[in-house]
């Protein structure tokens, strides 16, 4: 269990923080959404990589196989992916509506417009 042996978690953390940073630091709403998707997707990888059993195969019953990976996290994450799709569709739909209402998708310009009475 060396530090490098847990490389899947390092990848997850890297992706998660990248996505989180994009979401926080960008002012462009579309880029923020991209960051948010990355952030969500990294969690999917966390779940899927955790379900891997060393030496196990895909959890479909077949002759000669006794060791299977854990299928439950896959099922859970299928649900989470659907939630992610819904979130991204709704988020982008809101961005489209914001663009129509304000004529821009830059957060600072939107804030400027709102401050003028």
């Amino acid at each position, binding site marked *: 269990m060396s530090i490098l042996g847990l490389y899947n978690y390092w990848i997850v953390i890297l992706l998660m923080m990248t996505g989180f940073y994009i979401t926080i630091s960008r002012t462009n709403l579309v880029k923020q959404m991209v960051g948010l998707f990355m952030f969500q997707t990294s969690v999917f990888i966390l779940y899927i990589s955790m379900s891997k059993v060393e030496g196990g195969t*895909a959890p*479909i019953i077949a002759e000669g196989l006794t060791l299977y990976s854990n299928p439950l996290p896959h099922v859970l994450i*299928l649900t989470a992916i*659907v939630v992610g799709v819904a979130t991204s*569709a709704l988020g*982008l*739909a809101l961005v*489209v509506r914001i663009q*129509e209402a304000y004529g821009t998708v830059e957060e600072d310009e939107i804030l400027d417009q709102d401050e003028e009475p």
Partner: protein
Amino acid sequence: MTHHHVLRVIAKLMIPFILLFALYVQFHGDFGPGGGFQAGVIFGAGIILYALIYGVETASRVLPPRIVRAGVALGILLYAGVGLAGLLLGGNFLEYGVLASDPTRGQHVGITLIEFGVGTTVAAVMITIFFAFAGRRTQS
């Protein structure tokens, strides 16, 4: 895209197979990998490909938005209806075992119907999302 003959011909050849593959994934889901979610997305992708090549208006003549929207609702209702059927037949909500005289067969019936409901809703939602974004400019 009227002048892209290659795309139009290839798409016309591909789309039936994509839809067929979706149905395979849908109904083979209880024997191998597959199921409603995947099948729904593949089916939706077939329709979206059609809309990309032939235009959203043509696609919405094939599948009018009202029907797609009804599909969203009907899929969920099928799912919930199977759940309620289990309840009415004396089991718990979503208990498939009571749907047929033999519990194993009941499980089979239940999961097939449920996955069909899921597939319908997912395909309809995918198409609705695409129409909502792609048809936006013509609406406003």
